[in-house]
């Protein structure tokens, strides 16, 4: 069995959001780039599954759509333990475009399970996983909070109202995972860090594909009104406001 994990290169969660070029581009000066946190969890889980599989899972590949600036992040994924990586040399701007590129990689090497994080912390797009599964015409499961493999059978846990469902599905499939799939992302060991450059990082050119959407420009969100403070002895006033002013009850 082979697992592919899609990884996204995103700005560190403490980065201040700013734009340049007349508010059309995200300002990348001084930005620390990291692996999208949900993708990192997905990668950790994939490696846990491989280690527990006694050889049944032969490799974990990471795939990224990005320009050369993504490579340090890809090498971190290799340091964490991925066996090899593929970088499709293009800007990752439109989810349809990104999903279509990764679909080519999956089709070429016949992966059995594809993991995608539920969303990326920059554009908050959640679409790549779903789109990828439709490009490949395979089943997808979302809100995956757990994946287990027993005797070659895949069990998927999906979070629902009030608890969780255990599902079975057919391979190959795409799992769109959220926190819970594993709790903490793996820290790369020294060995892994030193070996990262030695692992294959294949760069491929993108296939021609339309970009269905485009980000034209950005605005800062409107300033927030000041907080209305209520006295702790007068809790009823808050409930009143929630009911009649905010209308959220």
């Amino acid at each position: 069995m082979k697992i592919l994990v899609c990884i996204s290169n995103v700005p560190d969660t403490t980065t201040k959001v700013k734009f340049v070029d007349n508010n059309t581009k995200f300002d990348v000066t001084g930005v620390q780039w990291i692996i999208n946190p949900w993708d990192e969890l997905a990668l950790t889980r994939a490696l846990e599954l491989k280690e527990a599989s006694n050889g049944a899972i032969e490799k974990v590949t990471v795939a990224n759509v990005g320009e050369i600036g993504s490579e340090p992040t890809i090498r971190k994924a290799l340091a964490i333990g991925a066996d090899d990586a593929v970088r499709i040399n293009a800007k990752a701007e439109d989810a349809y475009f990104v999903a279509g590129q990764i679909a080519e990689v999956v089709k070429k090497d016949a992966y059995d399970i594809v993991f995608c994080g539920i969303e990326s912390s920059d554009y908050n797009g959640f679409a790549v996983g779903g789109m990828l599964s439709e490009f490949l015409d395979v089943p997808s499961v979302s809100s995956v909070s757990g994946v287990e493999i027993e005797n070659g059978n895949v069990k998927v846990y999906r979070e629902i109202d009030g608890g969780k469902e255990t599902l079975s599905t057919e391979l190959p499939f795409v799992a769109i995972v959220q926190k819970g799939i594993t709790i903490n992302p793996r820290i790369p060991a020294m060995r892994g860090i030193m070996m990262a450059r030695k692992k294959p990082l294949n760069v491929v050119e993108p296939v021609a594909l339309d970009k269905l959407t485009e980000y034209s420009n950005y605005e800062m969100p409107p300033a927030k009104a000041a907080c209305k403070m209520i006295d702790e002895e007068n809790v009823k006033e808050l409930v009143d406001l929630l009911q009649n002013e905010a209308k959220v009850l």
Partner: protein
Amino acid sequence: MAILVYCENWDGKFKKLSFELVSYAAKLAEKTNTEAVALSIGNVADDELKQLGKFGAKKIISVNKDELKTLDNKVYTSVIAQVAEKENAQILVLAHNLTGKALSPRLSVKLKAGLVSGVIEIPSTFAPINIKKKSFTGGAIANVVVNSNTAIFTLSPNSCEVAENETNAAVENFDANIGNVATKVVDVNKVTGKILLSDAEIVVAGGRGMKSGENWAPLEELAQVLGAGIACSRPVSDEGWRPHEEHVGQTGKIIAPNLYIALGISGAIQHLGGVSSTKCLVAVNTDKDAPIFESSDYGIVGDIRKVVPALIEAFKEVKAG
């Protein structure tokens, strides 16, 4: 030509969210001189389906088949696509919730329709479509242009007011083609009463200010009175006081309830990133300088041990009265 709005049901019933979606679709229909068509999948009674007609849907299509009992992303996508083709849908509208997020990407590829997720208004132009959405976890608003002929939007919660517009629409049953259903439910583990955090309309959350995992009973009672989901900040789940599913934040769950009550949460950026789309944020904290008050709509500086029981009483009265 039509605006197709997918209305999910919960055990055969719709929610306020569903009517927001239909109202939004009706607005789009008005602007594009077309009709809003509502689609329901699953076992929903005619009476309930007709509700959708109250908010501007000119046609209500219902697809009810046994194989559709469980959400199989591929199969549902195929059904919605069939209806979209039948109705010649120009724009599809889904909720920006877990189901919407699962289906809209597949639909985008199936129909080769540009997807804009988490839109917050109706488009400013229609040919091409220019529309606003939230990005960078609420840190900025992006303007997106759709290049394809068909578009799909997932509507951010709390972005569209419910607008009554009775059309007396009729319910039409559609016999969709169902292919192979690959995903099957093997087991369900439900703790009844526990609301799915991701889609909850009201959420009560606890932070380090709760002092210990032993102190959650009042918070749970408050959540129960309000019919709310329960959440926590990262340090709380890291310490093991609460399960990881409850962690809300940039690396946990990102949610958008109508009302978020933050108890003993100081307001770190990473936590606020998880609730930036909340309609109304209420904070209770002993520290008047806690950063969370800068992001809240209402705040109380006080002791949680006093304030929460008082809130429970006050909310109980409102529910009763």
